[in-house]
């Protein structure tokens, strides 16, 4: 029964608010884009004086853009005068860097040993089932991305789900639905604001 609720809501969000936002936002978006690059310039200005700060620049760039598209990688490479292949090499090496846009909420299930022996796999299955996507994928409405993370070091609270920055400890598959619903509520409120 819960499935119907979820898919129903998904459709709603996909059709109406998203489109409206898109059409309206075009000139705004361009503005937003140039602001993002201006922010990136500041980051590069600050860190490129020190040697070996590529990882920090990429982290900050990801904070600005949400992910690291080729365009951004090439931009950074040119600005700090290193081959784009080197930038791409670093981006693809570390798991924190994403080359695809992520959902508004990234739901990370901790797959550390302590969480694993306390049922993290069952949580992961429940989450995949609930959102109908696989690990590493994003829901079509762009709200959720499922990921697994290495130990977050809060093993006393195992098993753990990290929704963006919020750590939820000792959770059961049943609570996953609640967390998703809370996120969705936040999402619909945000949409109305736009």
């Amino acid at each position, binding site marked *: 029964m819960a499935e119907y609720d979820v898919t129903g809501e998904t459709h709603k969000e996909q059709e109406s608010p998203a489109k409206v936002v898109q059409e309206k936002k075009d000139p705004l978006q361009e503005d937003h884009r140039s602001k993002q690059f201006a922010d990136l310039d500041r980051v590069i200005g600050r860190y490129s004086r020190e040697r070996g700060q590529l990882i920090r620049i990429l982290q900050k760039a990801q904070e600005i853009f949400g992910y690291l598209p080729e365009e951004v990688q090439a931009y950074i490479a040119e600005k700090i005068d290193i081959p784009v292949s080197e930038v791409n090499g670093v981006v693809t090496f570390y798991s924190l860097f994403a080359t695809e846009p992520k959902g508004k909420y990234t739901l990370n299930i901790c797959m550390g040993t302590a969480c694993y022996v306390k049922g993290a796999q069952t949580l992961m299955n429940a989450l995949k*089932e609930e959102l109908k996507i696989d690990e590493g994928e994003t829901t079509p409405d762009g709200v959720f991305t499922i990921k697994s993370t290495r130990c977050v070091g*809060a*093993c006393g609270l195992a098993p753990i789900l990290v929704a963006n920055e919020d750590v939820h400890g000792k959770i059961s598959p049943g609570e996953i639905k609640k967390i998703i619903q809370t996120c969705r509520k936040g999402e619909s409120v945000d949409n109305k604001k736009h």
Partner: protein
Amino acid sequence: MIIKSIEDLKEVKEKYEPLIKQRLGHRNGLGLTQILVCSGTACHSSESREVRLELEQELARRGLEEQTRVVKTGCFGFCEYGPIVMVHPGEIFYCQVRPGDVRELVEKHLIGGQVLERLLYHNDSTGKRTQTIEDIHFFQAQRRIVLRNCGVINPEEIGEYIARDGYFALADVILHKNREEVIEMIKKSGLRGRGGAGFPTGRKWELTAAQDIRPKYVVCNADEGDPGAFMDRSILEGDPHSVLEAMTVAGYCIGANQGFIYVRAEYPIAVERLELAIEQAREAGLLGKGLFGTDFDFDLSLRFGAGAFVCGEETALLHSVMGQRGEPRPRPPYPAQEGIWGKPTLINNVETFANITVVLREGWEWYQGQGTSTSKGSKVFSLAGKIYNTGLIEVPMGTTLRTIIFDIGGGIPGNRQFKAVQTGGPSGGCIPAKYLDLPIDYESLKETGSMMGSGGMIVMDEGDCMVDIARFYLEFSQDESCGRCTPCRVGTKRLLEILIRITEGQGEMEDLEMLEELSYDIRDASLCGLGQTAPNPVLSTLRYFRNEYVTHVRDKRCPAGVCKALLHYTVDEEKCIACGLCAKACAAQAITGAPKQPYRIDPEKCTRCAACVAKCPRQAIQKGIRKDVADLGGEAGIYAGAGDTENRATL
């Protein structure tokens, strides 16, 4: 103020000492109530921040902010019962305090002067509640040396660290000692690297100091990647200055003026505290140019890990510090000879640095007397898994596993049997019950086929399948293998494939030999520590739990009931009340039935998610071996029983 001398340090110490002394149980008539709130990651996740804010608001509302102070502290270690709140004077220890409890706490304790019984620690075995930290067995059996400031001082206040004799050792070293003397002290203390391999720390310092090339660098490895290990994080969150001080001492001894702390970006609180600590140390003149009025300069900067386990390996870490792909390289040259930008670099782990300040403060003679003949001092472990008191503990080297797990840890919940304890993360192994009385140090753990590692201990009970655990670790190592060398890249993949085959009931008896052979090849031929130790979880489980592998392969059974492909869910027709809840819960529509008829599960459609088991009000759905596989196995039924007793005998 800028601290230039030991006198300056003493001045700061005097200012903060009364506060600290009260927290240590002194009734010094301060006229002040201090409320300590744990702000480590675990307590933070269970809303300790909200508790703190609520406390501050409530105190302001009641006009109590003058005589009461709310203090953030690092981890108490008792993570299972977080958030922890401690009230001084009186040392009253409250557990699991929720924001909603704050009002009552303030009313009853601070205004009424009475202890709020309901939030005290409840000892399940005696059925009593205890008031102070000393009454709790978890703390009684520990010796907190490295962690002595965690849960006592505010990690965001450098003055409190100084009040605990912090930075005095640094002043003494810079003002009164030459570098050879200090290195000699570290050597004599017998301190060994706490990152896992246990290389003598003094030797490492000596090697780096002996290099003639300049500049040199000091690096702190805070890339704590082992799943289930959180010692380093807790030290950084609870006592960051101890690491800063030790790194500065290291810089002085080896002749370096720049240090880097390589910390995981996944530890936001630790990063924040480190940034603040560095800033405060700079403001106090304890980092930067001309420390203590001498010509010695030393400064620190942070570098962030971006989620790669292999970066815990020192040569990979160096590449990552330089902003490159974190791939390891062959050694020699060792980092002591050629490290960052090709210059001599000293790399020590967080806990090792935290031990340096202990050695300098207490003296090498004292330190030498702690621990076992080969492993000196104490070790911080993080306890997790199937254990009552998950958390952070510190015990002298040589303590037995039994003391740690059953005494401090409180044993296994739910009357279940202890099966194994996993130490050393993906590089370590599973230690079975027969070694529970083994005094643990670097050597003894190695002999069992595991290793000290960074100090994560995951306790497993009879509900954990050891083949599945081996598969879990291999999946981790395979995923984290950087791909530079073939034995690790391809070897771990093949190992994992075999393990998956076994857990899915497709294994052959020859696979077990293949697992062993391949494991030895990977161990001997891999480039770095990751590959060399990746087979350990397989080898150790094969060594101690071979019959579990055999049961999977020969009988197509998973005795612990974990491996899904080997499971079969059936409805006990006697118990079924035909309520239909299971059918509703089933996402795969594998359960059918009609009113007043027992329900049935179609094994073809069943995904073994166990959702129905959770829903059934009569516990009528049972987990068993798969019938179709059992039929294929022929004698499986007989072996099933035999395997079971065989298995229990080893527990």
